[in-house]
């Protein structure tokens, strides 16, 4: 039986890579063995791509419009107007799992917490340090001295190293902190149902209205404990100082999050998110041995509630850091590693499928749909950019040799060129939308940076080639080969 489960696990770990590599190999083989089949496939794919990009850009526009509309809402007063019986009772607990981040990163995050308009006597802040970091205690002491008087409870936790069954992941640290928080709530007699827990990356700076917005959604949604609450992550903390290359990657990441906020059936928690503390305890906290703790917590809850669990989008932003290096190459490496870690989210696929297998209460159509969504998002990530930026131009280069005077050889570059330029219109729209997502220009940034904010989108094809598909393909291949990834820290940098 044990052998069987290992076999299934490996089979589902291999599946995404097999599908992605098969798609790429089919295209590549067809290019040289059956050029006309290749032409048929690539034109069909290009049409699919243009329509898909058009569709997603429409969703992005809707989501962006919604974000703008809800930006200036006074959420706390809306909560008061609800006169909800539990409105005054809810505590907001926040965990900041920290690793190598210094005070320059943690300080602004806590400062943003301090500046929120949520009643501070209802706020609990836990900064979760790793005990293996030598300077953890010192940092904790300095932050405690600065912030402990501002909140109902300010707590520093120190996650011990080498706990059995744990990997060195952010989830393990957050879980340790959540358990300390649980002890605190027990000691103070606070019900878990009355606590909303938010797990924020160490560099997350919330908006003033964030907790009001969160409370409003918590009080108004159906079955609030069976929901996760997902803000829109933007990377505004240091965006004016980051390189154009890093900037467009991160803005694109925000866009994908905005798009997904419109596709509720696909929407999964990502990065900084919030949920009911009771649910967190019930489902057994964040996973302690997996890298993708942010999405796995959703799947744990989804399975626990037999599919009656969802992610509620909140059109309010939380700001994080753009990861970038001293030069383009370093930025490329940092971005590649970060995106590979995100793409490692494919590790949820075997976890979800194996759990679906054992769960008889979730309807089959829901299981199939969810499995398809996971596969679709990861396989398309690993293949689309590669097909568009590498496979397609490769065949154009050998067009004369491959098609030997056939009409398709003449038409293929023209048609793919027209289809591709149609997607450039959407890039123009992305560029315009990005302007409204940007924070005000700091005084130390020169005016020409504004021009770069517009012209940076010319880098888009380069970004597609450099880190479009490769991190996802890398992550899937590692999973297929059983070379499991450990959590890799992305260095944060501020000027």
């Amino acid at each position, binding site marked *: 039986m044990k052998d069987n489960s290992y076999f299934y696990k490996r089979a589902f770990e291999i599946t995404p890579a097999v599908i992605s590599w098969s798609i790429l190999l089919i295209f590549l083989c067809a290019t040289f063995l059956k050029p*006309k089949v290749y*032409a*048929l496939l690539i*034109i*069909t794919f290009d*049409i*699919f791509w243009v*329509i*898909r990009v*058009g*569709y997603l850009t*429409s*969703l992005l526009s*809707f989501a962006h419009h*919604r974000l703008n509309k809800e930006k200036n809402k006074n959420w706390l007063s*809306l909560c008061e*107007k*609800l006169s909800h019986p539990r409105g005054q009772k809810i505590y907001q607990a926040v965990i900041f799992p920290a690793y190598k981040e210094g005070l320059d990163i943690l300080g602004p995050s806590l400062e943003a917490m301090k500046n929120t308009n949520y009643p501070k006597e209802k706020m609990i802040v836990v900064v979760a340090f790793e005990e293996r970091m030598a300077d953890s205690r010192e940092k904790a002491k300095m932050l405690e001295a600065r912030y402990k008087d501002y909140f109902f409870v300010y707590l520093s936790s120190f996650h011990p190293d080498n706990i059995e069954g744990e990997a060195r992941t952010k989830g393990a640290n957050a879980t340790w902190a959540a358990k300390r928080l649980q002890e605190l709530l027990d000691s103070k007699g606070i019900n878990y149902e009355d606590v909303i827990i938010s797990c924020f990356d160490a560099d997350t700076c919330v908006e003033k209205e964030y907790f009001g917005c969160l409370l409003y959604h918590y009080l*108004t949604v159906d079955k609030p404990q069976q929901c996760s609450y997902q803000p829109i992550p933007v990377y505004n903390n240091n965006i004016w100082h980051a390189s154009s290359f890093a900037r467009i990657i991160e803005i694109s990441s925000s866009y994908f999050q905005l798009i997904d906020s*419109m*596709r*509720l059936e696909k929407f999964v928690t990502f990065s900084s998110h919030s949920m009911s503390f009771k649910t967190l305890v019930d489902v057994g906290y964040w996973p302690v041995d997996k890298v993708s703790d942010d999405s796995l917590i959703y799947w744990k809850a989804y399975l626990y509630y037999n599919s009656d669990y969802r992610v509620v989008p909140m059109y309010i932003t939380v700001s994080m850091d753009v990861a970038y290096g001293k030069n383009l190459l370093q930025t490329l490496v940092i971005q590649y590693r970060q995106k590979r870690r995100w793409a490692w989210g494919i590790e949820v696929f075997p976890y979800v499928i194996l759990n679906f297998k054992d769960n008889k209460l979730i309807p089959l159509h829901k299981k199939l749909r969810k499995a398809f969504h996971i596969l679709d998002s990861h396989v398309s990530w690993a293949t689309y950019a590669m097909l568009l930026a590498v496979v397609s131009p490769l065949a154009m280069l050998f067009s004369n040799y491959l098609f030997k*005077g*056939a*009409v*398709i*050889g*003449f*038409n*293929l570059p023209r*048609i793919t060129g027209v289809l591709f330029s149609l997607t450039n219109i959407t890039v123009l729209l992305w560029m315009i939308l990005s302007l409204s997502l940007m924070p005000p220009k700091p005084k130390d940034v020169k005016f020409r940076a504004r021009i770069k904010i517009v012209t940076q989108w010319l880098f888009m094809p380069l970004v597609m080639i450099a880190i479009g598909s490769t991190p996802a393909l890398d992550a899937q291949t590692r999973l297929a080969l059983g070379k499991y990834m450990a959590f890799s820290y992305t260095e944060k940098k501020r000027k």
Partner: protein
Amino acid sequence: MGLFVKGAIKVMVQKIRAVLFYLSVVLFLALTPVILFYSFGYKLDIDRLRIIKTGLIYLKSTPDGARVYLDTRRLNQATPVSIEGLLPGEYTVFLELEEYYPWYQKVRVESGKFTVLDNIVLFPVKPYLGKINAADVDDFYIFPNDKDYIYYIHANKTAISRVSLNPREKEAELLTGRVNLAGNIKDFSLSPDKNKILYFYGNKLDVVYLDGEKQDFFITADHKIISAFWYSDSERVVAVTDNDIRIYELSSQGRENTVKILNINDRRSRAFYDNVEDTLYFTDTQVGADGNQHRGLYRMDISKRAAPTLIDNIEQDIRYNER
């Protein structure tokens, strides 16, 4: 009330999303076969209600914008143009552009194939004509080492002038007015420093200083000069006669330090001089071991870095062949 509005907005957004999604699916299903058929050269014959496989012709002319006729039928597009949906067969393509000579060609179109004619040049009926200089001209030269100017000899053969090839600089520059050029000059050559011109005829070789700072001088060789070249430093002249190869030094007006570097037998030797490497390529005739005359091709390095043995080898080789 607020909750109701929020719920209604959510439902509406999801409805719009559903409409967009299904619209995208319909668009994909409708567009894909049409674009694929078009890409592979298929066309719907409406009269006979059947699908036919066609070919195409791509035309690009210089200049662009020529009217296109296909078998006397005028098309609405101008070059560059791709004429698509053509049934297999032979077509006459005719291009017409005002003030240019027309162009036409018979083109064979095959089913599912394309023909590219992208190197069509239309020549103007009235090409641009501009007078470069004012004086009467006997002859002119554009030297490979000075393509900015055209050098010309005045009709009375006593002066050499040059004028820039840039049409905006029309002023001619008189380089020398004290020559007396013979009628049978074989060739002119500009020195690498662009300061001297040599020309030769019969057994005479003249060097004219263009800046007039030095006096021109004239060499009379013992034999008929076949070719003459500038050495890379512009201070020597390499002359190939029908008897030998000599190097003349200009500083001694060709009177001293004249080196006869090689005897040759070829009365009509062909020679080429690479004045970057200072290497002379030439032909010479020798009697071979079979007793017959053989015309060989030789290379002679006369650069400042040349090793003397190389010349010796050629001499020995020639002498051996002479025997």
